[in-house]
């Protein structure tokens, strides 16, 4: 049995930052199913938002307001203020640790425009996104991993967490599968932080990595921890046609324009002030509508139909300097040089606004009344603070990792000073062991790939950009069946060392649980708000729905509850751009 005061599960931006803080005084280990530098933070492109004001006037207060309005007023407002104020320090901190931001001619951190980020409460787009070409996430991940090396943080690479241990409401550690050997190891800990990222892989077309399977959220849900706002999933407007590979909003931040089959700049009809820099939910819906109304470039309204993202007028020099990876993706996967021709794009499943409910220090809530678990933390995309409300603004995911990963790590450091190691029995790993031996057991089981395809098709078709009660009810039925069939899935590969087959089956189980919860929460919310757009309830309904959803998974049933939203600073108003 291993013993660490603090365990961090996941080695993306939030996990690494928390590890840097916790390891200052506490014995800390990071467990990650991937090598840390493979984490999905590295795929973030366009920037990290902070009101530095390097190119024009900007204020954290404006950033906070944009975040609240962008989230369609489901954002907890005090949390948004902390996010926006601390973003400035976070960006300087990253720069001071060596992060190679792109620069202004004066040598300051350069900033670009991004969707929904505005000057003076919505007047016009503002340059707020601090960026390193279109590799900002890569630079953040690299910088944080470098700092972990510098500070001798302990890593258990390619360890997959199978179980989390509790003593009443106190977290006592985790049980993990060592992928290199197939051995199951118990880690006793005073505090555990989950930073396991998102779960875009429940959809057919997604910008997310294979690894984004919501492992932490699903595990905690099965242990009785509620999940918050799972009905809110962001579709990024511009994924590469058919593949879903992300084309950063930074293209539009630099002046790129969305056009339909007629060459029309259609965003003029949907968001007359911010145009192509409106928030993502609105632009994804606009593209969807254009395609449905036969103004897609193919014109057949099919799932493969698309619109054009035109960057040809930006010039080759600007594209190669500020958007070099986008240019390369476009050349590699589309055979198109974006300085010559527009890129075919359509929305792609991108980001989970919902997740493990946490307070401002990353501590996990047990209910909607403010009761907390002890020694259990979450940060990053897997957590729900909630700073993103019903729709996240571009750049705010990276801000959240740094700001709330740090806060959680700092709180853990304090907590473990005064905490004892909870008792962990020798039998602690038994549940995980029997789960694994069942999966690897003999017999013709259900084919997991078939279940995965059915889940992805169902979620994409029935719980996508636009939703309605009938389709979602159908999705829930299908997901019930798929979860039932999952119980008979067996891994075809029964070997121990580097068994990626077992890992994929475990990940599928997580996705199925989260898809089931997401669809149930979505059917329950009878209004349209942010990314949750219902054809049968087209208006936002503040009197009935201005609150967070909590969902408990109880075996095959889901119990739903509420949690209040903090609207202490800005009164909810209709959302126009």
């Amino acid at each position, binding site marked *: 049995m291993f013993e660490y005061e603090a365990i961090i599960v996941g080695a993306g931006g939030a996990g690494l930052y928390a590890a840097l803080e916790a390891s200052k005084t506490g014995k800390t280990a990071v467990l990650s199913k991937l090598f840390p*530098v*493979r984490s*999905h933070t590295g795929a973030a492109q366009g920037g990290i938002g902070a009101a530095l004001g390097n190119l024009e006037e900007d204020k954290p207060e404006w950033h906070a307001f944009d975040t609240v309005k962008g989230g369609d007023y489901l954002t907890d407002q005090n949390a948004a203020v902390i996010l926006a104020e601390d973003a400035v320090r976070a960006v300087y901190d990253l720069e001071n640790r*060596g992060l190679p931001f792109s620069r202004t001619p004066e040598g300051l951190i350069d900033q670009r425009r991004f969707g929904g980020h505005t000057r003076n409460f919505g007047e016009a787009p503002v340059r707020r996104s601090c960026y390193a070409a279109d590799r900002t996430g890569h630079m953040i991940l690299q910088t944080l991993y470098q700092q972990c090396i510098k500070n001798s943080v302990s890593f258990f690479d390619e360890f997959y967490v199978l179980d989390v241990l509790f003593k009443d409401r106190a977290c006592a550690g985790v049980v993990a599968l060592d992928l290199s050997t197939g051995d199951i190891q118990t880690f006793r800990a005073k505090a555990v932080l989950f930073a396991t990222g998102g779960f875009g892989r429940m959809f057919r077309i997604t910008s997310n*990595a294979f690894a984004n399977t919501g492992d932490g959220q699903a595990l905690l849900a099965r242990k009785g921890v509620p999940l918050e706002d799972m009905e809110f999933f962001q579709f990024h407007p511009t994924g590469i046609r058919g593949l879903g590979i992300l084309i950063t909003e930074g293209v539009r931040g630099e002046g790129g324009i969305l056009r339909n089959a007629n060459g029309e700049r259609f965003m003029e009809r949907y968001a007359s002030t911010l145009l192509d820099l409106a928030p993502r939910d609105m632009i994804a819906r606009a593209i969807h509508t254009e395609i449905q109304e036969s103004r897609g470039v193919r014109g057949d309204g099919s799932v493969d139909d698309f619109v054009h993202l035109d960057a040809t007028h930006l010039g080759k020099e600007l594209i190669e300097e500020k958007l070099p*990876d986008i240019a390369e993706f476009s050349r590699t996967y589309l055979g198109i040089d974006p300085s010559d021709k527009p890129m075919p794009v359509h929305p792609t499943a991108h980001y989970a606004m919902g997740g493990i409910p946490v307070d401002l220090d990353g501590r996990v809530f047990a209910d909607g009344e403010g009761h907390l678990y002890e020694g259990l933390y979450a940060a990053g995309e897997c957590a729900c603070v909630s700073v993103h409300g019903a729709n996240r603004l571009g750049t705010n995911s990276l801000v959240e990792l740094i700001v709330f990963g740090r806060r959680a790590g700092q709180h853990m450091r304090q907590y473990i000073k005064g905490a004892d190691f909870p008792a962990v029995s020798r039998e602690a790993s038994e549940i995980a062991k029997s789960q694994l031996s069942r999966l690897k057991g003999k017999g013709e089981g259900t084919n997991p790939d078939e279940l995965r395809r059915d889940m992805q098709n169902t979620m994409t078709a029935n719980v996508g950009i636009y939703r309605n009660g009938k389709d979602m009810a159908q999705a829930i039925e299908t997901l019930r069946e798929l979860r039932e069939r999952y119980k008979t899935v067996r891994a075809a590969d029964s*070997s121990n*060392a580097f068994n990626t087959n077992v890992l994929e089956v475990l990940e599928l189980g997580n996705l199925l649980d989260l898809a089931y919860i997401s669809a149930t929460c979505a059917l329950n919310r009878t209004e349209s708000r942010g990314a949750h757009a219902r054809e049968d309830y087209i208006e936002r309904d503040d009197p009935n729905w201005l609150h967070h959803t909590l969902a408990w998974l109880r075996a095959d049933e889901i119990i739903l509850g509420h949690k209040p939203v903090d609207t202490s600073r800005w009164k909810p108003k209709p959302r126009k751009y």
Partner: protein
Amino acid sequence: MKITVEIQRFNPETDTEPYTKAYEVDADPTDRLLTVLMMIKSDQDPSLGIRKSCAHGVCGSDAMIINGKEGLACKTLIKDVAEAEGATIRVEPLRNLPIQRDLMVDQTHFFANYMQVKPYFISTKEPKSGEFRQPPEDRKEFEEGTKCILCVSCYSACPVIQEVNPDFLGPAAIIQAARFNDDSRDEGFEERLPHLDYPDGIWPCESRFECTRVCPRGIKITKTINLTKKKITKYREDHKSRE
């Protein structure tokens, strides 16, 4: 189009030697090789061992030998490696590191070399407020190295490691050191120097350009190594003349 994918297989629990297994697949010319390998894994052989994550060339998980040359499976389209109907694509694990299973190699040594060069920002200064100032032309000086995704391709392609000196530090670690040595804000050159300037450090490089040829991020690796050699030589000469 119908193609054959020949994959080098090895399971440490059942095999004594690697062997080749051929799989017939129906693939689209614009499919990623990774997609085809995942098709094989799901439809024909779930025991295939492979690392993968982002699937668009930025995480560095799926570097392998594709038709004899290092590349990322997710950044390689079928049409780029299979000329026509009936073509065969050969896929093998990276070279110069022990095979763990099928297409997975043990990267422990690679990462140990990387960590050895102190690949992190070292500075005793603090900016008066906010950020360190750095003109765009100074940032350009170390731009190349920042692109590295530690995918191991260069280390696998290095003929010096394979033929001359298996203890050579390798291209990626030098690139990572240069990324900081060439950063106008950094002060760690002397701390990193002993980890580059020793017989198995930077000097075994013979400028054979294989690393540059295979780098999926297009980093000018050989050029950067030579510039770093020059920088070290100059430092040693300046240091000697001062003594």
